[in-house]
């Protein structure tokens, strides 16, 4: 029996403070593919991202989450990162007093202890800074401390490029970015996907806007409403949502739910 390659959620139900938020998520992000996840505010997108990354505040009620067949749910956050998962935070936390350079080095060493040649590492960091149009002065600043919204997102992308995970969940990395920053982020994701170590990365791209998909085209688009993936389609689905909003999807799903309920009764 072959293992399922991919970042896989099966019937994942998750509660926060005893309130069920995710009500059975089934999702498979295959290596090298881009899945976009869209949905209204509060539908549970970040909850899914945090659950996959192992945030202690999220309580898994049932279901499973695996990365290339390895169970994630039993692992602490750092082991999930070591297994190859990366989360780009919607709201990255500040770590005052810890320089970006020190943090990057510590993280890289934790995730890939085998290959830290200081000179090569330095080159890697400077190359990635360049791709992201980031001033090397950022290396001396404290992690996310006093960073603007856009700077935080660029730093998330810098970390992703340096850690080169197997699967990356990008939680609204495109929100709050100006046009140039959006381009930099897109360029950096694509540069990573074109590189040897990045070509097999599977992406779960959480977003509200189709514009990021112009830079990073999605293979699959999912719509999450009220804790359920109610629709899955091709790239055109993103444009549909932008044009019509979620109401159309909502109406069809609630009637579908009503039918299901009626069928059960």
């Amino acid at each position, binding site marked *: 029996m072959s293992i399922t390659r991919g970042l896989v959620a099966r019937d994942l139900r998750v509660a926060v403070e005893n309130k069920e938020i995710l009500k059975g998520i089934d999702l498979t992000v295959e290596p090298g593919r881009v899945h976009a996840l869209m949905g209204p505010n509060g539908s549970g997108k970040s909850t899914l991202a945090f659950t996959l*990354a*192992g*945030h*202690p505040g999220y309580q898994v009620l049932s279901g499973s989450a695996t990365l290339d067949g390895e169970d994630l749910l039993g692992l*602490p*956050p*750092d082991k*999930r*990162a*070591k297994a190859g998962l*990366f*989360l780009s*935070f919607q709201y*990255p*936390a*500040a*770590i*005052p*007093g*810890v320089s970006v350079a*020190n*943090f990057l080095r*510590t*993280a890289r060493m*934790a*995730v890939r202890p085998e290959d830290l040649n200081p000179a090569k590492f330095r080159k890697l960091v400077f190359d990635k800074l360049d791709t992201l149009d980031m001033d090397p002065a950022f290396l001396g600043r*404290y992690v996310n401390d006093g960073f603007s919204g856009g700077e935080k997102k660029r730093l998330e992308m810098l*970390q992703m490029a340096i*850690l080169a995970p197997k699967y990356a969940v990008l939680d609204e990395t495109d929100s709050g970015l100006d046009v140039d920053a959006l381009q930099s982020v897109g360029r950096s994701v694509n540069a990573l996907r074109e590189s040897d170590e990045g070509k097999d990365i599977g992406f779960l791209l959480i977003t509200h806007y189709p514009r990021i998909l112009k830079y990073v085209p999605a293979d699959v688009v999912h719509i999450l409403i009220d804790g359920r993936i109610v629709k899955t389609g091709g790239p055109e689905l993103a444009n549909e949502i932008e044009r019509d909003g979620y109401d159309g999807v909502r109406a069809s799903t609630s009637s579908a739910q009503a039918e299901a309920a009626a069928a059960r009764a």
Partner: protein
Amino acid sequence: MPSGVSETLPALDFTPTAATLDRVLTFLDDQDDGTASDAALRREALARYEALPAPGARPNRGWKYDYAALKFDELRWTSGRIEMAAIPSRPAPKPRPEEAGDLDRPALATENAGGLFFVGATRIDAPSNVDSRITVLPLTESGKHDLAASLAGTLHEIVDWRADKFAALATAFENCGAYVRVPDGVQLETPIQIVFASAPDDEAVFPHVVVILGKGARATVLERHVGDGDPFTCGIVEVHAGEGAELDYAVVQQTGDAARVFFSRGARCERDAQVRWYLAELGGALARTVLSAKLAAPGARAEASALFFNTGMQHVDLTSGVDHTVGPTTSDTVVRSAATDRGQGRYVGNIVIRPKAHGSDASLRDDALLLSKHAHIDSIPALEIAANDVKAFHGATVGSLDEDALFYAGSRGIARGEALRLITLGFFEPVIARFPGAALRDEIRTALDGKIDEATEIDL
């Protein structure tokens, strides 16, 4: 009568009593080495020590240490004169230079403008590369060198021992110290180092350091406390910064697990003078420090940057004080403290802006980090403002580790223990960054890192 002498003189059993002081005075009189024993002053100081209440737990819920219960068992007082070590009938300090070097080789190896090295109260040879423009002498030799005029106005005048119980004790039993003078206009590039290493057998050490900077002088003094012994050290540091002078005075306290280190340090700043205190309390069982500065003339400025990290059963009791006597004068105090295990800390921050101190600016910021549920830190700010048109800022926080930051680091593959270390070290970084010299800053980071390893109970 050599036998009688050896029994009574070389090392007195120390108690903070008049009987011990009598023996101390008898000994000092016999020395006849030009030392002013100052019997009247010492007796008056002991009387103040006895009269002043112990700065006890009274007003502070969490601070458990009771100074009234301070024990002085099995401590020896020596005169600090090298001759004493030579008396053969009792194994007295006998510090061998090579041993002294082992205790703190990096300190002596560091480039410096001069300094003094003590093991217990006994001075070992000074580092050789003393800058010829300055004077660095053991304070106990002040009589020999006719320093009375130079010391007037500074010695016993800057730290108010009449109001400070432990400064009074230090005055009564003073047995070692340093006199540092940097004349007008002399600006030093390398620090003056004063190192106190604990003696192999436990001593009661009462240092008195006097630093006098002439007009426009600039210097850095590095005072270190090292060694594995269990001494009781109770000292005074008095600084006088002349017009336009600038002094960086850094203290790194890394004594052994059972050491007790008490210091009252005070500075007086004349017109446009600046004194910057830096304090890293890292070792010892109990450290009590008073850091103060009196801004005596317009343009004077004081800064204080202090940190402590209490692990195990460590107690640190820190008081800072800035007295803006006239205006415009400025001060900036930054304190960062952390505690884990059963560590206890107290920080009292005093700012006084007197009626004549118009146009002054004072800032006081302290942040505390608690890493275990049995650790405790009290923060007690006291701002007394009697002048108009002044700026006074005070901010304080007491917090625990930021779970969001821990999760964030975890999501980058950094295990919880390592994340905790990063975040804790990061917490201290804003105050470490103020310390003078990259080498000293790195040394403090390394020491803090070592303390995180030692901490047994970082629970959250």
